[in-house]
């Protein structure tokens, strides 16, 4: 019974409300519902491809890939170079610390540190490195999203490192290294041909989920992002809440398309991953 009950509960409590809200957004986006709707139309979908939505999607994708890629790169480097230090228990526990800090607080700290009137800028002015705060490089609310990336790295790098350390231990990569090196493999081959593929296979689903999570980030880009282009969640919410009530169906269209693109991408990637594992 429990076997049947759990999937049923999951469907009723999670999937059904999700399906209903996506369905409602879909109807809203084509004028099927809505207080100001004037009948069915595809015009709001057409409005999506005038630029703002595409820019935001690409920008969000960039932020997501750069955040996940950066965190992965840092975590792998730390794993391979500093692994022995992490074996001490206290250091290992320290890695959990950033996970306990709410994202909005991280964003706020980054703003305090790196904004034009932030701590670093003031130090630079006082030490005579720059003449005024205007000369301080734009690190938050900047075109490349550096502030957002820094916040994401701070939150996720330690978590990736924790997962990698566990994967390393559970897959006995130390022993693999010893065996391979006794068989004459050099350290580059061991790292890239043996250990990395094993680690990546374990980390892959998590990596994909984090990319999706970063794409939908809201509070960090709200505080640290620039006014244009905006991350997709910020844009959708702003469209929903702007002065123009005619923008509401456009916001719903964005939400539907964004959800569809995410669902299709995740399903495809996870299917690929599973079929690879099967081989």
């Amino acid at each position, binding site marked *: 019974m429990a076997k049947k009950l759990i999937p049923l509960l999951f*469907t009723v409590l999670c999937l059904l409300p999700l399906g209903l809200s996506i369905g409602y957004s879909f109807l809203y986006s084509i004028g099927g519902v809505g207080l100001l709707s004037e009948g069915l139309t595809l015009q709001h979908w057409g409005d999506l491809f005038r630029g703002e939505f595409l820019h935001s999607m690409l920008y969000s994708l960039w932020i997501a890939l750069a955040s996940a890629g950066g965190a992965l790169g840092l975590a792998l480097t730390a794993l391979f170079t500093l692994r022995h230090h992490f074996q001490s228990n206290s250091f290992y526990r320290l890695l959990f610390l950033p996970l306990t800090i709410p994202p909005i607080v991280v964003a706020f700290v980054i703003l305090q540190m790196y904004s*034009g*009137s932030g701590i670093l800028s003031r130090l630079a002015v006082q030490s005579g490195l720059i003449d005024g*705060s205007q000369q301080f490089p734009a690190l938050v609310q*900047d075109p490349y999203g550096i502030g957002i990336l820094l916040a994401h790295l701070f939150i996720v790098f330690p978590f990736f490192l924790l997962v990698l350390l566990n994967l390393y231990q559970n897959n006995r990569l130390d022993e693999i290294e010893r065996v391979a090196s006794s068989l004459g493999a050099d350290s580059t081959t061991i790292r890239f041909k043996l250990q990395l593929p094993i680690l990546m296979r374990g980390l892959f689903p998590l990596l994909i989920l984090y990319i999706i999570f970063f794409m939908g980030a809201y509070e960090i880009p709200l505080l640290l992002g620039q*006014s244009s282009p905006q991350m997709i969640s910020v844009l959708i919410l702003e469209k929903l*809440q702007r002065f123009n*009530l005619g923008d509401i169906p456009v916001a719903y269209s964005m939400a539907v398309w964004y959800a569809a693109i995410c669902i299709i991408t995740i399903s495809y990637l996870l299917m690929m991953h599973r079929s690879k594992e099967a081989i």
Partner: protein
Amino acid sequence: MYKFYIIYLIALTLIISGCSSSPKIDGAVEPVDMIWQEIEEAASGETVTMMMWMGDPLINRYMSDYVVQKVKEQYGITLEIVNGQGTQIVSTLMSELESGRSASQIDMMWINGETFYQLRQIDGLYGPFTQKLPNMEFVDLDNPFIGVDFQQPVDGYEAPWGNVQFTLIYDPDDVENPPQDFSEFQQWVNQNPGKFTIPTDFSGVTLLKSWMISMADDPGLFYGEFNEEIYSEYSGKLWENINSMKPDFWRGGETFPNSVAQLHQLFANGELAFTMSNNDSEVDNKVMQGIFQDDSRGYVPESGTIQNSHFLGIARLSDNKAGAMTTINFMISPDAQFQKMQPEVWGDGTVLSIDKLPDSWKQRFQDMPGRIRAPDRESITDRALMEPAPEYMIRLFEDFRTFVVNQ
């Protein structure tokens, strides 16, 4: 297994549809059909939820320490304040109407012209009710800055609560002679790169509106209904000029602050030489709170700025209309308006006509302590521009993003 799913789904659909379609059976008399004494009696014991912008600690304190206490003492009304403004109010009421709810979670709200316009569009407001409020007799409805909201007749669907004029605030260390019109502003920005910017929110759009109107020889062109030709002509000129200033804006115009709060912060940090406010007395408040430097000054350029009023409205689906009406009547009383107008309380301009007040009140209003850093109210009234129709604001808001921010 699938049978389970299907039965569950049907049950759930029934539950959901059951929840949403329970029409209200209401035989009770509407408050607008009662006499005032009955309204006050009906109000006693009601819990009224008011949605308002809670971004200013002084305003919050005025509400919680004064209004909430007084309506409890005098009328037995429990007033609960929740945070939310403009579009949040609209979207809350809109989803309630869309889902067919019978009672709103909001009873009354603090609104401005563009929200009034949107709420009228979705028929979310209750009224006309203001004719029932005894204190309306003191309200200066003949003043077009109070009796008309964004060129729309108020029609009794909202009660004026306060009246303010847009002001620029500057740091005299950075700005020796504050620019008096748009072209002087262009020159100043050109000579002082990086020290000026425009937020992309309501305040920024109010500045853009003031500049756009001042570019026409006759501000009257923008009064009355929205006119596409006039908008296109003057907004086109406005974007052209602003884009030529843009490289000299803060951060080279690559990004813009998304709220006036952020602008205030940049001004307080010394990154910017100007900030702005929809409330002409805000500079005094902010200095008093220690946020702005002591020597900050507020002013209205000769070319003029928008003066407008803010209002109180009642949700059409409110279950506590008598309580909301009684609360609003208290909030426009001479007592509450006098309290609110004092610079150290809030400094919000009154909507009452001093001439219509009883003599004792007249004297008290006239003896109110003057402003220190904010411009004198009487001197800026000559420089007041009326709010144009809400479509101007909606279009400027969109087009500022399209033609300036996103470029």
